[in-house]
């Protein structure tokens, strides 16, 4: 590594430090939740390393407890992961000159927070040839913190008394994760509609209620976006 590469790597890592306060409790909660959903410690460690997508993991675990079919769990995780498709589209021009291995590594390690920091700092056209090192530095800090926190949850979670209802912390962390996604009125309406439908559909077979609620939410969001753009056009 050249000095410039190390310097970019370090800058990225330092930018991730303030974000640790969010990812550490979330990782511990995910670790506890995986084990209490019935995964063995080995499977939980495997999920943490292989999946590395906290929101999708927390979305699937209640379905695992409810013995939902595999395809419902896959579909639910996919819906939650759709935001990564946006990130991927935004990041593609930044990384297009990198090798196959680099692009695979940076894809695996992409997390919401570093994506936001990175896109705020660099433009795709920036001449800086080391911006991927910055992305890697920040992402590695988040990855390490997430894996360590998950390990703590997996192996020390059993020490926490059941009466504390730590599994409820999983729902609370989803509330915190949801907030930055509610960026305009249409998406707020989409979320409210999905929440309403999820209550009506909670008893539906195979746990497809969540998917139905999501589809209804997206439909409402698109309708609201279309209405408000028509109004702006008139005004």
């Amino acid at each position, binding site marked *: 590594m050249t000095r410039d590469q190390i310097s970019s790597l370090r800058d990225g890592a330092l930018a991730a430090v303030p974000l640790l306060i*969010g*990812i550490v409790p979330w990782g511990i909660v995910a670790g506890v939740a995986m084990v209490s959903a019935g995964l063995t410690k080995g499977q939980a460690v495997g999920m943490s390393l292989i999946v590395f997508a906290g929101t999708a993991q927390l979305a699937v675990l209640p379905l695992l407890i409810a013995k939902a079919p595999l395809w419902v769990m896959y579909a639910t995780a996919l819906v939650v992961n759709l935001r990564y498709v946006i990130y991927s589209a935004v990041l593609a021009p930044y990384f297009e000159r990198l090798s196959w291995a680099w692009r695979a590594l940076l894809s695996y390690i992409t997390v919401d927070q570093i994506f936001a920091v990175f896109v705020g700092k660099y433009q795709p056209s920036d001449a800086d040839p080391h911006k991927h090192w910055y992305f890697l530095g920040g992402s590695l800090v988040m990855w390490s913190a997430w894996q360590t926190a998950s390990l703590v949850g997996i192996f020390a979670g059993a020490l926490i008394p059941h009466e504390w209802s730590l599994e409820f912390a999983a729902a609370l962390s989803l509330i915190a994760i949801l*907030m930055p996604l509610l960026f305009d009125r249409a998406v707020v309406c989409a979320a409210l509609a999905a929440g309403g439908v999820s209550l009506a559909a909670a008893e539906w077979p195979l746990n497809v209620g969540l998917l139905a609620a999501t589809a209804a939410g997206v439909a409402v969001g698109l309708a609201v976006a279309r209405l408000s753009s028509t109004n702006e056009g008139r005004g």
Partner: protein
Amino acid sequence: MEDWFAWVLIVGLGLGAFLTRAVFVMPGSHLRLPPTAERVLRYAPAAAIMAIIVPELAFTHGALSVSIENPRLVAGLVAFGIAAATRSILLTIAGGMLVLALVRFLAG
């Protein structure tokens, strides 16, 4: 749960998480998302997360319970307020858990 089932789940989720993150980065070309597709991709995760949260808060012992005596609902609503005001995962979890304990204590 069967061991193979857990690993099929884990590997499938891993593939999904990788492919959604790699779908534009790996080809490396200038593919553009149509605006409607981008909207759907932006609304779906928020809608799905909300649809996970709401039943977790509103159902107790399998029955709908919209009342001030439902500790999860009260704690969840307070957590929404904390999350909106602070954007902090730590404060949201800590505040929500505190309210949960408090409501349970008051309800005896």
